[in-house]
């Protein structure tokens, strides 16, 4: 799958630093947290919660997303000392979010499948939920990038800087994903 190959084209933190100034800020915040400043982690949370929210929204039911965001950041807070590259906080927590989404589906299969009530909660915002379902049906690399762009309102360079993907990969994913989404939306009325 070429979509997965695009996901693997990750940029180095130095490359990301050239794109935006964020890595420098996150390095300061990560160091502050490691030195005992808990407020520093609130800064990381405010900065990266939309990223984690978008990654989860592309993979798990909406009703579970908010709790999982909290769980992921609490996990990250406890395991922050294991982060080798302080500039790579974004890719690190993005990977945690993706792994947590995989765990969620694995556990859901072990217990019960996602029932109608869980799906029903997503039907309240029917229009948005329908489009989100279409995005979720796209390949993984496209769906995550599109959710971050269209739902969370992040620009391509921001997505690249926070996820660790190269700008070229993000641009390709956005372009191809949007093309596929337009084709899907052709079956829907009003769009």
């Amino acid at each position: 799958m070429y979509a997965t190959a695009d996901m693997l084209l990750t940029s180095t933190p130095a490359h990301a630093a050239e794109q935006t100034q964020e890595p420098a800020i996150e390095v300061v915040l990560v160091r502050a947290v490691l030195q005992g400043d808990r407020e520093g982690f609130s800064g990381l949370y405010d900065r990266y919660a939309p990223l984690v929210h978008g990654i989860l929204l592309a993979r798990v039911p909406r009703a579970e997303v908010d709790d999982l965001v909290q769980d992921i950041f609490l996990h990250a807070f406890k395991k922050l000392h294991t982060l080798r590259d302080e500039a790579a906080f974004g890719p690190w927590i993005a990977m945690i979010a993706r792994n947590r989404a995989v765990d969620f589906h694995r556990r859901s299969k072990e217990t019960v499948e996602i029932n109608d009530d869980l799906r029903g909660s997503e039907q309240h915002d029917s229009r948005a939920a329908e489009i989100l379902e279409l995005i979720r049906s796209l390949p993984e690399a496209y769906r995550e990038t599109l959710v971050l762009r269209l739902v969370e309102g992040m620009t391509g360079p921001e997505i690249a800087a926070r996820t660790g993907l190269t700008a070229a990969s993000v641009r390709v994913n956005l372009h191809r994903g949007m093309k596929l989404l337009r084709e899907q939306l052709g079956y829907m009325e009003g769009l």
Partner: protein
Amino acid sequence: MNDDYLWDKSGEPDPQIQQLEQILGTLRYQPKPLALPQRRNYFPLLAIAASLLLALLAGGIWLRVRSRNEAPPQQARVETPTPKPTEAPKPPELRSALNPPLSAPKRIHKPRSASSVLPAREREEALMAKQQLMLALRLTTEKLHLVHTRTQPNQIKNQHRVG
């Protein structure tokens, strides 16, 4: 197709993308405070542990002191090594005096434990003093025996006379 707006929201806006942003924006992340776990204050636990430790130590010391006061006095155990069979050198005049022709009862004198503890030189001196004392006692015993034998026949003679 120019996708600058899709890339970084620059250039001419794409109405379809704008509409999608408007619809999907309702699902956007709503900021919520993160509840970090409270720092664990270990001071109360440490204080309780230290108090228990002190109480245990105090109890142990009290029990030990109490058991010492209640226990009967015990003699200190002194281990006595087996005496060596070496005999102290005896002067010839003492040896003859110690082995008189009289059938004196032989006593086996076990060496005292204290003497074995003494150094060899002091032990020899103590043995010499002991032998001299024994010689004096034997001489006195023989004198008394002689007196006794001299006085005894008269008594018997007198008894015959009476009888």
